């Protein structure tokens, strides 16, 4: 296990690389869902104020 | 009879969340001037800019001589003159140079035509001074000189009498009169009446704040 974590001496490079990439993936998921949620809320708000014209 | 006819049908346009033009309809033909009135913010400027193709209506269409203006925008533009809220002049050039470069891209100008137009708007004194040094009314007059020089059938004017003195107001009326007499079409946004001699070709339309 510790041999695996050591990555043949490259741990200081390999793990940060994976960490950054996985962080980017996770953040993308969070951002995308937040965008969708926010625009849903905005749309509801607009409907509440203006009703639908045209 | 000419076939000049500018027509708007059910024009819709938003600015931000604001539904500015809500199904506007209008029609002006050769020899007619449509006076656009309406409270501040009613959408007069927006309608004029849409009519000349600078803004894109999200609904409805605008036709000129029976065809959608977008079909051949260049040809349509070659037939119209648009004057906005501010006179389109370069501050560093003189009034005469401004006209030369502005009108010159549309048609070949004779120097005596230029002289004539400048005299018509009372620019003899200041035609050769940088526009930067002109008063607000003098700038407006220079823009009017440009308008007469364009020789196009369709005029779209946004408050053309702004900053003009009493005599200048009459000048605008006279210019539109002549334009209509020659079979031209005019669409003008105004708050006060236009000082025109004949009311025959005058139509009015009021925009309401949307």
């Amino acid at each position, binding site marked *: 296990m510790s041999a695996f974590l050591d990555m043949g001496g490259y741990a200081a490079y390999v793990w940060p690389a994976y960490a950054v990439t996985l962080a980017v993936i996770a953040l993308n998921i969070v951002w995308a869902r937040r965008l969708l949620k926010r625009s849903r809320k905005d749309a509801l708000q607009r409907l509440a104020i203006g009703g639908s014209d045209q | 009879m000419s076939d000049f006819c500018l027509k708007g049908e059910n024009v819709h346009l938003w600015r931000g969340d604001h539904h500015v033009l809500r199904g506007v309809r209008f029609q002006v033909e050769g020899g007619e001037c449509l006076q656009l009135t309406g409270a501040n913010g009613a959408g007069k400027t927006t309608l004029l800019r849409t009519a000349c193709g600078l803004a894109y209506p999200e609904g409805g269409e605008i036709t000129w001589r029976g065809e959608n203006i977008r079909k051949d925008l*260049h040809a349509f*533009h*070659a037939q119209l003159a648009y004057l906005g809220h*501010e*006179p*389109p002049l*370069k501050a560093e*050039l003189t009034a005469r140079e401004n006209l030369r470069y502005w009108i010159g*891209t549309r048609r070949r100008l004779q120097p005596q035509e230029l002289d004539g137009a400048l005299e018509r708007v009372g620019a003899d004194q200041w035609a050769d001074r940088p526009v930067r040094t002109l008063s607000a009314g003098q700038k407006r007059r220079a823009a009017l000189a440009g308008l007469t020089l364009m020789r196009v059938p369709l005029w779209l004017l946004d408050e053309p009498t702004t900053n003009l003195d009493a005599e200048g107001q009459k000048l605008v009326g006279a210019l539109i009169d002549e334009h209509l007499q020659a079979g031209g079409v005019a669409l003008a946004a105004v708050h006060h009446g236009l000082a025109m001699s004949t009311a025959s070709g005058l139509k009015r339309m009021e925009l309401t704040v949307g």
Partner: protein
Amino acid sequence: MSALSAARLMLARDLKLAFRKRSQLVQPLAFFAIVTTLFPLGVSPELTRLKPMAAGVVWAAALLSSLLALELLFRDDAQDGTLEQYALCGRSLTWLLAAKTAAHWLLTGLPLALMAPLAGLALGAPAAAVPGIVASVAVGTVALSLIGAIGAALTLGIRRSGALLSLLTLPLEIPVLIFGARATELAIDGTAYGAPLQLLAALAVLGLTLAPLAASAAVRINLE
């Protein structure tokens, strides 16, 4: 009257505007001169240390002074409403903007090309390098003006666009910088600089065909 003669008039107008103040003509040159003197001041006065940087400095200075003049390229005309009139004049806006870009090159690119050898010599380049420097800067600034025109047209609707403009155009201009600096460096070293110069010319031609089209599309959108 054709689109071409309208474009010619536009060129004449922009040149007249620039020549109205005689002092404005020397300004891009003075700017360039000052920028190239900044480096010896900032780095070291020894020619042996300066010479390897000469090409880079000349190019960075050219790029920056071209960029500085750029913001004004369309902005002035947009603000006073004349650009709108040109968009409504029934002529091809593409040609008119190409003429404006040509004026920009004549007023900044060309003087820079004539000035660059001087800066190069001051930074330790040999006299034999002069034609190479002139050629590379002259061709390269054509590409810079064209790319810059796109950026200026894109940011037309935005106030205080200076930084955004450079953010948009610099990435696109970097290939020009790379090839230009390479050509200048080879010229200073006395080697054949034909290959990067050809690439530079290719970039300029690519720009010539694409930039006015992209710029006129962007201007029309921004006037809306």
